[in-house]
């Protein structure tokens, strides 16, 4: 059954066509949705294709960095000087061809993977205390990324913004070639006002903050030990929950140590 395909040519039109999102599948770059279409795993009735919606590109306004929803993952590498962890997290994703097509919002809004975790940018942007401007039921709203993630499948993300951190670091456990999904990753960021935030991906659900570890950030070993208690792991094709629980403290230690060195 051929779906209705809508291709808005402005952010306003995209929001209007999305409406309350009922029965609508959104395609950012296509890297997540198109394989599902090709294989017949999904059969959407209505598809919103954002390739021309003018939602791409990032802006820097003073200390505030705003990423348009369809900003490509590859273009985030251009922020390496300002947000090291974001560039590192982006560079760790797939390969340049896929990064050149994949979008920030597509990665944030992605659902559970097929036996492997997805949504690496969720962790990094949580650590950056990002907020998401989105539209959907109830109209437009801006909320913390953590709240957005809880209902990300019902919303159309418009942009993501955060304040430039004083420093940020990223560490991941991944198989040593481009094709593998990231098994586990942690981002640490110290905000301009000195607050350290930690977040991880590769968990049982979407990316999540490591709040007890954050509370102990002054004592790296204690923070590392506390981190597994903040999250739930799952077994999947890449690694067991147990293995991830053993590696998480290592990654936390790494990002906090490097964050300290950058001070």
């Amino acid at each position, binding site marked *: 059954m*051929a*779906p209705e*395909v809508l*291709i808005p040519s402005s952010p306003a039109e995209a929001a209007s066509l999305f409406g309350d999102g009922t029965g609508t599948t959104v*395609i950012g*770059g*296509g*890297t997540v949705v*198109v*394989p599902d*279409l*090709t*294989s017949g795993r999904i059969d959407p009735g209505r*598809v919103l*294709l954002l*390739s021309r919606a003018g939602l791409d590109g990032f802006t820097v306004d003073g200390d505030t960095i705003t990423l348009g929803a369809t900003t490509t993952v590859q273009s985030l590498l251009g922020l390496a000087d300002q947000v090291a962890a974001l560039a590192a997290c982006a560079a760790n994703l*797939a*390969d*340049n*061809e*896929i990064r*050149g*097509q994949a979008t920030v919002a597509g990665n944030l809004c992605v659902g559970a993977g097929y036996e492997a975790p997805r949504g690496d940018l969720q962790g990094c942007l949580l650590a950056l205390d990002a907020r998401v401007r989105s539209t959907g039921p109830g109209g437009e709203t801006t909320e913390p990324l953590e709240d957005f993630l809880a209902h990300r499948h019902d919303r159309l993300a418009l942009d993501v913004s955060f304040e430039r951190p004083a420093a940020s670091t990223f560490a991941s456990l991944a198989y040593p*070639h*481009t*094709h593998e999904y990231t098994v586990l990753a942690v981002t640490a960021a110290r905000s301009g006002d000195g607050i350290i935030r930690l977040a991880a991906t590769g968990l049982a659900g979407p990316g999540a903050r490591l709040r007890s570890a954050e509370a102990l950030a002054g004592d790296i070993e204690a923070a590392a030990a506390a981190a597994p208690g903040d999250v739930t792991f799952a077994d999947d094709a890449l690694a067991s929950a147990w293995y991830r629980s053993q590696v998480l403290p290592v990654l936390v230690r790494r990002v906090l140590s490097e964050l300290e060195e950058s001070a």
Partner: protein
Amino acid sequence: MNLTVNGVATSVESAPLTSLLDVLREELGITSPKAGCEQGGCGACTVLVDGEARRSCLTPVAAVDGAAITTVEGLGSPEHLAPIQQAFTHHYAAQCGFCTSGMMMAAQAYLDDGGNDDHEAIQDALGGHVCRCTGYVKIIDAVAAAARGESFDLSVTAAGTSMTNLGGVS
């Protein structure tokens, strides 16, 4: 929808969410990009979209309406091989040949972007491409040689010249 494919303005009838891969292969009969996995995992489908290397299996054709698409057929021909095609031939960078189209398009984008003969940079550029036959060494050597602007004497390695240099083995 409209595409410019290898320099030729082409109108496209396929449904808007048809993958660019299927548009090229099924509608337009351009078969160099291959369906290796249709999930973006192998790189056999890579083509250039406005000069950028992209997985055609992941690209809904409506997203590239109006774009210029380049495939292997647009790089060169048996009579006039492009430098990357010469390099691949000379270095035996293809065995079964199935990954070759995708590899060369990625390599071409790398070269067009000013890529040099650094092996790590080449591996990074071609990092999304899987080859099950060659072990990659000759592919990287070929791209490095092309990056250095080497010219290749294909009188031995190009098939058109037959094997007369071996004393008539046919």
